[in-house]
């Protein structure tokens, strides 16, 4: 995303050697990852895996926003949490686990969920956002701020064995409000899901973030990837910008 990327150390060249063999990524892509920062809204089932994959890939900085402490019902899918961490801060557990994997990573751990009050200053700290939050109020606040600051936003979601992902490129693709102009009234914070489902979505979302940051491949901008792991079906669907969208309708 920036051409003022820092150069790699010998250690980094050794760690990221295999992914730098990807021809359209290479050293330049790795340097862009090193120079980039990503906000992850909640490090639960989705966000844990997004954070872990981005840390493994060599992202420079992660801002993790998630309130509260680890509960037993987190442990089927929140892979940065541990049994020993029950009752302790989720973001502290996440930071510790991420730095065990990548001690070079800068982590800003925020023991808050995203809301209308903190979204602006959280988004200001990063180049890209990955939205992994369960409540539409949080998601809409994040979408509003990401679009307003012209920051790419990877939107991931799951239910049962199904999932959807899209990437919002402000002014160029539909935003979350185009897809969902008002919070669905019947959505609840707790819903059926396996960790293997959230992990699958998290890996795809991390790959989207890496592609957007490093500038290679095709993203899910303007597309909704919908998949069903019960039947192992995947479809990539065209989605629409709403000219009357309250968040992005004014953008060219």
């Amino acid at each position, binding site marked *: 995303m920036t051409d003022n990327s820092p150069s790699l150390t010998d250690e980094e060249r050794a760690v990221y050697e295999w992914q730098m063999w990807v021809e359209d990524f290479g050293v330049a892509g790795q340097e862009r990852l090193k120079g980039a920062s990503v906000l992850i*809204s*909640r490090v*639960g*089932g*989705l*966000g844990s895996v997004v954070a872990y994959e981005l840390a493994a890939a060599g992202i420079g900085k992660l801002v993790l926003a998630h309130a509260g402490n680890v509960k037993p019902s987190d442990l089927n899918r929140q892979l940065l949490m541990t049994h020993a961490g029950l009752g302790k801060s989720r973001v502290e557990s996440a930071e510790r686990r991420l730095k065990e994997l990548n001690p070079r990573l800068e982590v800003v751990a925020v023991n808050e969920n995203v809301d209308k009050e903190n979204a602006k200053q959280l988004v200001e700290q990063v180049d890209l956002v990955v*939205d*992994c*939050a*369960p*409540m*539409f109020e949080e*998601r809409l606040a994040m979408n509003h701020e990401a679009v307003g600051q012209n920051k790419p936003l990877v939107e*991931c*979601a*799951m*239910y*049962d064995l*199904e*999932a*959807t992902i899209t990437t919002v490129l402000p002014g160029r693709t539909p935003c979350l409000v185009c*897809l*969902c*102009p*008002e*919070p*669905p*009234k*019947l*959505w609840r*914070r*707790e*819903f059926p*899901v396996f960790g293997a489902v*959230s992990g699958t979505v998290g890996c795809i979302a991390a790959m989207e973030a890496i592609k957007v940051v490093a500038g290679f491949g095709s993203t899910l901008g303007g597309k*909704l990837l*919908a998949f*069903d792991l019960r*039947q192992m079906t995947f*479809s*990539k*669907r*065209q*989605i*629409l910008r*709403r000219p009357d969208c309250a968040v992005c309708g004014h953008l060219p």
Partner: protein
Amino acid sequence: MQITIRYEAQTRRAVGLEEETIELVAPCRVSDCIQHVATLHPESLRPIVINAAGEIQPSLLIFLGDDQVVRDDTKELADGDTLTIMTPISGG
């Protein structure tokens, strides 16, 4: 004409089916089709897809084949079309 309705996420759980094929009389628009499907499952599906004013819920996601359509799309369905309906889902 025959239209296949695919249910995803909460609509699938409500109806208990991944898809069903229904018979409709042409001409039939997307909104007509969804209103009809809601009458087939009045207790389980209708509250998810139809609001108190009797309109299709603004947040309902509708796809004709692999292309999104809006709830007031005036396009007429054709025999053999597949219409997917789902509610937006979220993370966690």
